[in-house]
């Protein structure tokens, strides 16, 4: 996989937000060209990322839910689904009355406390974990 130094990754702030669980993670303002075959993999320390501690997550939008410009993320195995959900919610600038749902295998929702690394072990394929997400105003 290609690695991009910090200053060349246009979604750096949001990517680092995911990696560092920063509450101040912002959505990228630049338009990023989506290259499915070349995943963005920003690193916390340039060239020092340990692949064994991170897994690749591919995010796919469902229905009318906005599509994230960056779909492929490198996520620490210990990150929870909730953490990822919060990140996507901020990325999509969701409002208080909206709820994000995440699906594995398009057949169930993982618990928010579930670690993505465990999901990857059980449901990962082709070296990545595919998660579908859906924005909804469920619960009334």
């Amino acid at each position, binding site marked *: 996989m290609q690695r991009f130094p910090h200053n060349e990754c246009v979604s750096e702030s949001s990517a680092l937000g995911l990696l560092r669980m920063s509450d101040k993670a912002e959505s990228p303002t630049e338009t990023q060209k989506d290259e499915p075959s070349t995943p963005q993999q920003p690193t916390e320390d340039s060239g020092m990322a340990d692949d064994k501690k991170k897994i690749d997550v591919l995010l796919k939008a*469902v*229905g009318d839910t906005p599509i994230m410009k960056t779909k492929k993320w490198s996520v620490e195995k210990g990150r929870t*689904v*909730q953490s990822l*959900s*919060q990140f996507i919610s901020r990325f999509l600038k969701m409002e*208080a*009355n*909206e*709820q994000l*749902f995440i*699906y*594995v*295998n*398009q*057949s*169930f*929702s*993982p*618990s*928010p*406390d*579930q670690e993505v690394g*465990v999901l990857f072990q*059980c449901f990962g394929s082709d070296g990545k974990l595919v998660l*579908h997400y*859906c924005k*909804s*105003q*469920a*619960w*009334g």
Partner: protein
Amino acid sequence: MSSCFLDEETFCQCCQLLLQHSHSLCDGWSWEQVKGSEEGYLRKTALGTGRTRCNLDQQGNSSDQHQERTFSLSFHNDDEDDDGAVCCIQEESSSSSVVQYEYHILYSCSYQTPVLYFRASTLEGRSLCLEEVWDSVHPNYRQRLQHRPWDTITQQEHPLLGQSFFVLHPCRTEEFMMPVLKAALDEHRQVNYIVTWLSVVGPVVGLDVPLSYCTQVPEPPHTPSSSPQPPSSSPQPPSSSPQPPSSSPQPPSSSPQPPALGTKPG
């Protein structure tokens, strides 16, 4: 049968399959038959955590450790408040504590979906109040709940037991079930509606659904009346016969249902 809804027989079949897996895990689910009725529901008790109110002194301070001050809607009269407001926002002190939960999965004929009812009490036996239950919702869903709590979890009379339970509103079940059902339809596969549904609603109220349910519990037998339909097509099932082949004639969903699950071999 519309796209995202569940008929009662399929509900029972899905519950039975979930139950079998629960037995293999000793996960605690049981099927409860209502006396003198064909109806039943899944039941499970479990210990979890919740936020319960602790005792406050006159200054509103609590001696309990690990307390967190939360703002919540309070619907009782405050005698010290000159306004005599019925509804006011008060600063409450709550702490994380062990809560005894009792979960029931019922079928709703009117919504044609499963519905999650539950009770919650402290280990001392005190029932949690509605506000405490709202405070205990998993943080992942709390913001959405706080936006409109009355639309999410309220207290209602249990349809079969007549007792007061908390209930997670089913009116938007279709919205979160739709992505899964549509994908299953597109890929010519089925899902276990109850397992999928429970994986979404369970964690909201502290009910853990082990991952193995999502991989080990099979789907119910495919029947025309239970197959999901594309939203744009006719609501009628494609088969000319609305009767599922494996059971006795299917009465309307509001009528008594086929024999109890308990008669089936475990």
